[in-house]
């Protein structure tokens, strides 16, 4: 079985802070990491491979330094990695990103399963997985929290819903997006790290993908960012002090209306 796992390199949001003076994003020393959700996607791909055999290819679109994210997945145990990088890809929204990823999956041999994270922690859209499925003309199972069964022809998985979960069966090939609950990602092994350091990661550009220039990057993106700003900071809070029973009484007086209006 050939499994492709899509990983995105994102800034480590633990470090992203707002500069109080200029009110801009401080990114000094902000490390880049593999999108947290994508580590679950990688782990699940490896587990499927362990069960049914085959190859796992990690795929990322990004600037040349996104190479580092791919090496992390190689260290975890994926077999191959491919980086999609071209200045022409810059400015891609989810439409163009999913198109570009789809062109790369098409270029690969006999892909049976594509696994994405639920969403990326920078853009938080959760649109690329379903978008990719659509560009490839494939069925999808989103928000997967467990794979119940998988063989060469089909997959059965649990999708997390707001009200519970549902079990969905799909023929392969198919696209999954996974949530955190699905597994506990393994740590890279020493051997994996060594192999990752030495691995050759091919870079494919727009021409390699035979991509339509009108469908990639800025030109291929129907949405356009017109403004970026920092949200107004929350109003300074009030600290309540005193004995617990007094505090509780004061707090209830302040919150009673909110609670009553919510109940209505």
């Amino acid at each position, binding site marked *: 079985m050939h499994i492709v796992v899509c990983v995105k390199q994102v*800034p480590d*949001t633990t470090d*992203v802070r*707002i*500069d109080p003076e200029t009110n*801009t*994003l401080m*990114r000094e020393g*902000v490390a880049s990491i593999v999108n*947290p*959700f994508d580590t679950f996607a990688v782990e699940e791909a490896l587990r499927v491979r362990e069960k049914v055999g085959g190859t796992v290819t990690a795929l990322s679109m990004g600037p040349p330094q996104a190479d580092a994210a791919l090496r992390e997945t190689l260290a975890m145990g994926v077999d191959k990695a491919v980086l999609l990088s071209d*200045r022409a890809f*810059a400015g891609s929204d*989810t*439409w163009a990103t*999913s198109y570009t990823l789809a062109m790369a999956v098409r270029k690969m041999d006999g892909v049976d399963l594509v696994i994405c994270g639920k969403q990326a*922690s*920078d*853009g*938080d*859209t*959760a*649109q690329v997985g*379903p*978008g990719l*499925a*659509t560009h490839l003309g494939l*069925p*999808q199972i*989103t928000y997967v929290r467990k794979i119940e069964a998988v063989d060469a022809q089909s997959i059965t998985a649990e999708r997390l*819903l707001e009200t*519970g*979960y*549902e*079990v*969905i069966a*799909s*023929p392969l090939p198919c696209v999954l997006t996974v949530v*955190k*609950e699905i597994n506990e990602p393994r740590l890279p092994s020493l051997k994996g790290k060594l192999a990752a350091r030495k691995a050759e990661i091919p870079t494919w550009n727009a021409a390699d993908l035979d991509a339509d220039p009108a469908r990639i990057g800025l*030109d291929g993106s*129907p*949405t*356009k*960012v*017109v403004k*970026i700003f920092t*949200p107004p900071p929350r109003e300074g*809070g*009030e*600290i309540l002090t005193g004995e*617990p029973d007094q*505090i509780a*009484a004061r*707090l*209830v007086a*302040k*919150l009673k209306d909110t*609670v009553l209006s*919510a109940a209505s």
Partner: protein
Amino acid sequence: MPEPPIKVITQNCVGCGLCVKACPFDAIALNDEKIAVIDLDKCTLCGACLEACKFDAIEMKAREAGADAALDGYCDVWVFAEQTGGHIESVTYELLGEGRKLADALGMNLCAVLLGSGVTDTAAALTERGADTVYVVDRPELEYFQDERYAAVLIELVKRHKPNILLSGATTIGRSLVSRVAVTLNTGLTADCTGLAIDPESRNLLQTRPAFGGNIMATIITPHTRPQMATVRHKVMQEAEVQSGRTGNVSIEAVAASLLEARTRRVRYVPEQESTVNIAEADIIVAGGRGLQKPEHFALLRELAETIGAGIGASRAAVDANWIAYSHQVGQTGKTVCPKLYIACGISGQIQHLAGMSSADVIVAINKDPEAPIFKVATYGIVGDLFQVVPHLTQAFKQALGK
């Protein structure tokens, strides 16, 4: 060499460095002559520098203007009416509330799309909340949400009636569905919006949404394609009021059987066992973190939650310790919630947790560490032991609410 998509106009650049600070991707530096230089390998054309530059020294190529005349035929504001088992989800009413404002600003009709089985009568609930027309496809195959079928039918209706704007809830179903629709229709989709408005000049939909876990906000437009599509975060917009007796058109739409084919199949559906409210829907959330120390101590929170009609949330630390199911996790790798009231008990307030709850209207924090970052976002902070404070709070609420 093709013209780069973004460039610094050197004669305008004064070397102030504002753009360098503004760039989230570390793609701008000042050269020896104190002129900003953009590293195109790192630049994602996000536009943060354009916004920051006070000297008009950065220029970004506009997307190739298409045949925008083709946009003229698109009118009306549409809302995808999410329903489960014939019950309309409350996010739909929020979309109708917001959709009404947009439709009025554009002088267009507000319409709802209702897909399901045996749902035709439910259309009245949508006209009562302001829909001028409800497009209904009522077929047994649409009994519950299925990605391919729902997408195929929605795509067909959009092609048939050409809406200008199409909104859906940023729910599991909404996000899975409209991503497919937008790709097929070659149009833009903006995720998880918290603000929508009409630009009075261009009449474009201004879609504002948080990014980077809420650290920055971005306003996004879909200038050259229609419909302009967006998913909208639950609990941010005001629900449309019921206008008893208000009616509208109910248009029963026929669709070809081929659109109702699906490769995936639902094997079974298992509703959540926990009796408490679904937290994405909840108006009030009582959340617990590592400070609870033991799974049994969630009982303290459940009692408070029952008293005030709240759902139960949790930090990742509490979920990772297996004290409570993952579906209760709030934050970057859990759910994003936007309740009227969020009571955080024994939660430190790390940025990944805040990413999921900091847009709540009122935040109460109970934590014994006065330095805990949760106090920075709290409307009311209580520095104290939750094991003392929470029972008193439950008691006081019981009295106040006459329970």
